[in-house]
C-alpha cells in the first residue's frame, strides 16, 4: 500500500477516464469517463489528505463526492431528454451550437 502505487492508480484512472471521453461517441460513456476522472482525482486528494493528516482535505473529498453526485443527476436528466427527442444520444446530436 505504498503512496506511489496510490498515485499511480489515480493517474491511471484519470488517463483511462480521459481516453474513454475521447474514444467513445455516445454521451453516456463520456459522462461516465468524466466520473472516473473525478474519482481518480479524489483518490489523489485523499492520499494527500492521509499523508498530511489534514481534516480539511477530507472534508473536501466528501463535498466533491456529493457535488459529483448532484452533477450526475442533472447530466442524466439531460441525456434522458436528448434520448427522448432524438432516439440516439451521440455527440453528433448535440452539435447545434456549431460555429
Amino acid at each position, binding site marked *: 500500500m505504498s503512496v506511489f502505487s496510490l498515485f499511480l492508480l489515480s493517474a491511471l484512472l484519470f488517463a483511462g477516464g480521459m481516453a474513454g471521453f475521447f474514444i467513445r461517441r455516445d454521451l453516456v460513456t*463520456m459522462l461516465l469517463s468524466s466520473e472516473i476522472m473525478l474519482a481518480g482525482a479524489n483518490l489523489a486528494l485523499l492520499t494527500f489528505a492521509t499523508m498530511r493528516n489534514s481534516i480539511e482535505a477530507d472534508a473536501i473529498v466528501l463535498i466533491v463526492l456529493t457535488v459529483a453526485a448532484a452533477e450526475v443527476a442533472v447530466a442524466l436528466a439531460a441525456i434522458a431528454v436528448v434520448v427522448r427527442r432524438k432516439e440516439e444520444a451521440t455527440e453528433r446530436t448535440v452539435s447545434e451550437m456549431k*460555429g
Partner: protein
Amino acid sequence: MRELFWLIPLFPAFGAAFLILFGRVISRKLVSWLAPSLVGLSFLFSLLSYIQLNGVWVKELFSWIKVGNLSIPFALQFDPLSSIMAVTVSGVSFLIHIYSIGYMANDWGYNRYFAYLNLFTFSMLLLVLSANLPLMFIGWEGVGLCSYLLIGFWFEKDAAADAGKKAFIVNRIGDFGFLLGIFLLFTLFGNLSFNYINSHVSAVSPGIATAAALLLFVGATGKSAQLPLYIWLPDAMEGPTPVSALIHAATMVTAGVYMVSRLFPLYQHSGFALELVAWVGIITAIFAATIALAQNDIKRVLAYSTISQIGYMFAGVGVGAVAAGMFHLFTHAFFKSLLFLCAGAVIHGVGTNDMRKMGGLRKAMPVTFWTFLIAALTISGIPGFSAFFSKDEILKEAYLSGHKWIWAIGVITAGLTAFYIFRLIFMTFYGEYRGEGHPHEAPKVMLIPMSILALFSIIGGWFPKSFAHYLSPLGYIKVIEASHSLEIYLLGASLILAIIGIYIAWLVYVKRKGKGWNFGFVYRVIYGKYYVDELYNFLFVTPYRKGSELINRYFDKGVIDRTVEGSGEAALGGGNLLSKLQTGLLKDYGLWMATGIIIGLFLAIRSLL
C-alpha cells in the same frame, strides 16, 4: 493729374462690377452708353497724365499682403513706359468698345460681353500700371481670365469653349513660369517692386539673373503667344472679332513685351536671356509668317501675323532697342486692331471667315476696303505709314548691334508679311464674289472707329526719334545714330523685299486667280500649321489623360482601395477562420481543454525541473 492717375484702371473696374452685378436688369441702351464712356474716361485720364507726366509717379493705395518679411503694397506707377501702354490700351479699347456696339448688336449676351470687355480693360491697365511683380501678376492672370471668358463667349459652340479653356491653360502654364520667376526674384532681392529690382540688379550674379529672367520670359511667351506656347492664339479666333482685335492684337499679347522692357535691366544684366529673347522673337516671327501664307480663314491669317509681329517686338527689345520695340508695339496696336476690325466688318457683311467664299468686295464695301488697304500697306512697311518707321527701326537696331542674322531673318519675314497680307486683300476684295447672299457695308458705328484707327496707323509713325527721347528718363534707353548712308541701305533692303512680296501676291491671286500656288507637300505642311497642335496633344495632353485614367482605375481604386477594404476583409476572414473551431462537438472542446491543461502543467513543472 499726379494725384488722380490711379483712377485710370478703376473706371473700367467699376464698369465691370456694375455690369456683372446688374447686367441682367439694365437696358442695352444704357450699357452701350456706360461701358464705352467709362473706358473713354480712363483714356482721357491717361492722356492727361501722359501730357503732364514728369519723372515717375508712384501711388500706394493700401498694403495688399504683409506676412513676415514679404510685404506687397497695392501700388500703381505711372512713368514713361507705362504711360505709353496706358494710352494705347485705353485708346484702342475705347474705339473697340464703340465698334462692338455695332458688331454685337443682335447678340443675346450683349451686357455680359461689355462686362467682360470692361473687366479686360481694367486688368490690362492694372497690369500696365502696377509698380511690383505680384500686382502685375493680378493683371496678368486677369487678362488671361478675360481672354478665357471672351474667347468662350459663345460658349454654346463647343469649339469656342474648348478654345477658351485651351487659352487659359496655356496661359496658366506660362504663368507657372512667371510665378516661379517671382519667387526666385523675391529670394534674390527680398522686394518685388520694379524700381527696386532694376536698381539693385547688379548685386546678383548673371547666372541667377538669367534663370529669373528666363522664368519670367516663359510667362511672357505664354501671354504673348511666342514660340513654345503660341498654340492658343490661332484657336482664340473662335471669339467675337472685336475681342480678337482688342485682346489678341493690341493689348494682351503685348503684355510680354511690356514686361521684358519693364525689367530690361534684369535681362540686360543676364546677357544670355536677352539673346534668347531676341532669337525666340525672330524665329517665332518667321515661323508664324510661313504658316500665315497658307491659311484660308481670314482671322487665322491675322492671328499668325500678330504672332509674327510680336516676334518682331521681342527681337527689337532683345537686341537692346527697347524704344524701337515699344514703338513697334505702339504702332502695331493701331494697324493690327484695324486689320481685325476690317476683317470683322467683312465677316459681318459676308457671314463667313473663309476667304475662299469671298472676293470682289471692293465695290460692296468701299470704306472697309480702303481702311483695310491702308492697314495692309502699313504692316508691309511701305514708307509713309507708321509700321515702316517702327519695323525698320528694329531692323536697323538689330543690324547695328551686331545681330546680322536677326536682321536677315527680319527682312525675309518683312517680305513674307507683305505677301500674306496682300494675298488676303486680293482674295477678299479682288476677283468676283464666290459666296452666296449679298455682302453689305458695315454700319456707321463700326466704320468710324476703323477710320480713326486708319488715321492713327498713318500718322502714328511720324515721330520715332521723339519716342526714344520720351522714354529716355527710364535710363536704359540708348539712342544710336546710324550713318545716313547705312540707314538708306537698310531701309532699301526691306522695302524691296516688301514690294517683291506684294508683286508675287498680285501675280498669283489676281492674274492667275489663285489656282496655281500649291506646292503639294510644303503647302499641306504649312496649311496643317506644322501639326504642332497634334504634337502637343500627343506629347502632353493624351498621356496625362490616359495616365491619370490608368492610375485612377488601377492604382487608386485597385491598390489603395483594395488595401483598405482588404484589411476589412482580412478581419472578416480571420473571424470566419476562428469560428471553424466551434465544431459543436464536445470531444473537440475536451481536446482543447486537455492540451491547454497539459501545456499549463508542463510550463509550471518546467520551472521546477
